[in-house]
């Protein structure tokens, strides 16, 4: 169970860790650090270049950041919700981070060496790193933090450290991590915020005292925070290890859960950055000269899921026919207002090992009709589509899908439920089709593959579809045990191909993260996992 002292406001929580990371408890022998594939990287790099092209950063100022999520606790080992994560990651830092292009980057560690049996990793700590109270970072702090995280039975992500059998300090600047088995995604796992470093024994304070006035190595430190209040202020850490950073004096996070309020606040110049801009507002914000609209690729896919426990959706031809019948470019155009990309593979293009050559069942009404004719339901049938009625984009998706399935004789009734009821309904398999989004949290794609395909051990009965293809599952396990980058890419390409042909779900689109900033904000970027670092941000 999670920390009972945390106060959460989950209306606004983004389901950051939607996937069953438990799936990665299987031995995965992937290469350690890889660059993500093609398209998205290029897009990100262009963005980065555009950002760097700006003049010398200016110091000072307060960044006002209105977010749809609220922090409730700052303890990295005891939370999983977005409002907490994207606040505490400014205060505490892990050994590695995922940068804006989705690549693992040494952070509090400068690197590591691996033993011949791949079971012992020796990390070198970055010299000169200090906590915000001026005390130096030591191996003891790392040992304490990671032990605390991995041994915390209540920790929502403690299983990520499941492969670690021990962690010890070595000398004054090294940490030795021993694994119970060769475990390639260990760097990805260690980069998760739950493994961020706090001072050993909380610097002598009690846990409660410590998190009320936390001390970390991050660019900012806590200035004021009441868990059920609507704003939180951070101020610059004078001892930050990156020389000259952060540029900002302080950051004020405001909790504004109403979409139109956030948009109006950025238009009215009341704040500098807003998150989660509704796609419908993108066009009007783009035409606003005082606002900059930013879109960042995400490890995220919107899915139409079929309940294969029902005979009509256990019929592969029915699923294929529906996939053919859904015009995804039209969907993106109508519901996303031009943001995001039409869906194809169940891996998003920003994810490592995404295969652009996946044989996607592209929109074709004639193929849809021909395929349905081969099914056990050639004349169609009546069915229900479940959506989260609070999600306007998905409601629009549902309406378009309903009209696009009409020519097949498939008569869709849309059922809307509020978020809480929606989730508990589809997770009980009390549905026929539903629309939801799936995200990958860490840089390794094994998570998405296991969660959506491995019906037994993946943690979600193949995203509550009950899709079961033994060949695909075997390939997922094979990819987990594969070190060679090229071979692993080939395995994931084959998996994506099988899933595209079987059509257990329709990848509707790949939505981006949409932010709006005032013209004065420079150096802001978001990584594909949804995290943003603020030490590079400055105000003109």
């Amino acid at each position, binding site marked *: 169970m999670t920390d009972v002292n945390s106060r959460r406001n989950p209306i606004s929580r983004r389901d950051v860790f939607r996937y069953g990371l438990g799936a990665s408890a299987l031995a995965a022998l992937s290469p350690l650090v890889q660059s993500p594939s093609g398209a998205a990287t290029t897009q990100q790099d262009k963005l980065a270049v555009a950002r760097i092209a700006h003049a010398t950063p200016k110091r000072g100022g307060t960044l006002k950041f209105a977010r749809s999520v609220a922090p409730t606790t700052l303890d990295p080992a005891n939370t*999983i919700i977005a409002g907490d994560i994207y606040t505490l990651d400014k205060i505490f830092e892990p050994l590695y981070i995922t940068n804006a292009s989705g690549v693992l980057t040494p952070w509090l560690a400068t690197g590591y060496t691996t033993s011949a049996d791949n079971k012992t990793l020796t990390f070198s700590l970055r010299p000169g790193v200090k906590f915000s109270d001026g005390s130096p970072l030591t191996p003891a702090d790392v040992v304490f933090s990671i032990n605390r995280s991995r041994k915390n039975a209540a920790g929502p992500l403690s299983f990520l450290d499941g492969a670690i059998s021990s962690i010890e300090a070595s000398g004054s600047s090294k940490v030795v991590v021993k694994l119970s088995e060769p475990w390639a995604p260990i760097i990805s796992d260690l980069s998760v915020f739950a493994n961020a470093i706090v001072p050993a024994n909380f610097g002598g304070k009690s846990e409660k005292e410590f998190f009320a006035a936390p001390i970390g190595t991050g660019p900012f430190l806590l200035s004021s925070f009441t868990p059920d209040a609507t704003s939180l202020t951070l101020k610059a850490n004078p001892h930050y290890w990156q020389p000259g950073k952060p540029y900002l004096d302080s950051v004020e996070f405001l909790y504004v859960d*109403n979409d139109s309020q956030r948009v109006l606040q950025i238009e009215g110049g009341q704040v500098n950055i807003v998150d989660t801009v509704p796609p419908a507002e993108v066009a009007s914000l783009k035409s606003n000269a005082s606002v900059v609209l930013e879109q960042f690729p995400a490890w995220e896919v919107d899915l139409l899921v079929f309940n294969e426990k029902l005979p009509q959706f256990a019929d592969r031809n029915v699923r294929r026919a529906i996939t053919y019948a859904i015009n995804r470019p039209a969907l993106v155009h109508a519901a996303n207002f031009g943001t995001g990309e039409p869906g194809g593979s169940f891996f998003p293009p920003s994810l490592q090992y995404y295969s652009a050559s996946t044989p996607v069942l592209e929109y074709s009404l004639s193929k849809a009709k021909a395929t349905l004719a081969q099914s056990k339901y050639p004349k169609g049938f009546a069915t229900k589509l479940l959506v989260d009625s609070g999600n306007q984009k998905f409601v629009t998706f549902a309406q378009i899908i309903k009209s696009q399935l009409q020519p097949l004789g498939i008569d869709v009734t849309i059922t809307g*439920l509020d978020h809480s009821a*929606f989730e508990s309904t589809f997770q009980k398999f009390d549905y026929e089709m539903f629309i939801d989004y799936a995200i990958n949290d860490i840089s390794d794609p094994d998570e998405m593959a296991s969660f959506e395909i491995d019906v037994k051990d993946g943690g979600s009965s193949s995203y509550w579809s009950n899709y079961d293809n033994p060949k695909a599952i075997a390939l997922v396990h094979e990819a987990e045990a594969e070190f060679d980058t090229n071979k692993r890419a080939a395995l994931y390409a084959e998996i994506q191909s099988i899933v595209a042909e079987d059509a257990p779900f329709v990848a509707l689109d790949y939505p981006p993260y949409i932010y709006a900033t005032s013209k004065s904000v420079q150096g802001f970027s978001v990584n594909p996992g949804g995290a943003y670092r603020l030490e590079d941000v400055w105000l003109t």
Partner: protein
Amino acid sequence: MARYIAGRLAAAVLVVFGVSVVTFLFLHLEPGSAARTLLGEHATPRAIAALQREWGLNASLPSQFVRYINGIIHGNLGTSYIYQIPTSRLIGERIGLTAALVGLAALFAVVMTVPLATLAAAKKDQFADHVVRGLSVLGLGFPSFWFGIVLIEIFSVHLHVLPVGGIGSGFGGYLESLLLPAITAAIGIVPILVRSLRVGMIEILDAEFVATARAKGLREIFVLFSIVARNALIPTVTLLGLNIAYLIGSTVIVEQVFDLNGLGSLLLSSILNRDFPVVQAVTIVLGTSVVLINLVTDLLAARLDPRIRLR
């Protein structure tokens, strides 16, 4: 008088009890659980069941209800599942904002209503009257959140004179932040008030004592504001009292539009989170205040008009 108040208070208890029964039943009929929200996506069925047990949600509905009513009788409104603090503290922190919003909105409603109704009544069936009546029909037709967004666009986004939303610091900032929300909430009831007060004033304008006043040679403006408006005040107070309930209800929407953290937004977020103790407590507080305001209104009307006898 004391007997009258006691009787009304007893009735109020029954009303609030009825409201809480209905709230309780509706809440527990809906699927969804705060346990899932609190535990996140990795919640195991066992963890959810454990939390449900801790909260007593595994008991039968009647026994949960008995425990809930028992808590209320002992003045215990329970602890929020989501925030893990007593609901009374949560409500205490937020009730001030909503009370200020409702109070200011009621004030604005009166300030807008009296001149408009007076104008319409004085110029009955003339151009000004048609304009006022037309505007109130229009006002009834538009939802108040739409007015709110229009006001934000004009005063905050374009003119930059008032904040877009949220609550400012200091008394000035606080008042400044409440200005647009209060006007928005007031606009929701002004049309109804204007139409009723206009009718009331027209009746009084035809009354014999007004004719007498005029015959004595008093100036028309004095007649209107001192004699007519004073007499029309009683029905307005009664009407305002009745509409306070509507005003309190509208804070749920107005607080959303203006990003204010009062009881209205707390109620909405708690419903969506299935934070039952908070929903029930807020409903009781809002229900009680509506009943009390109605009582005060009746007492005030009796005080203003000696013809009204309270039994």
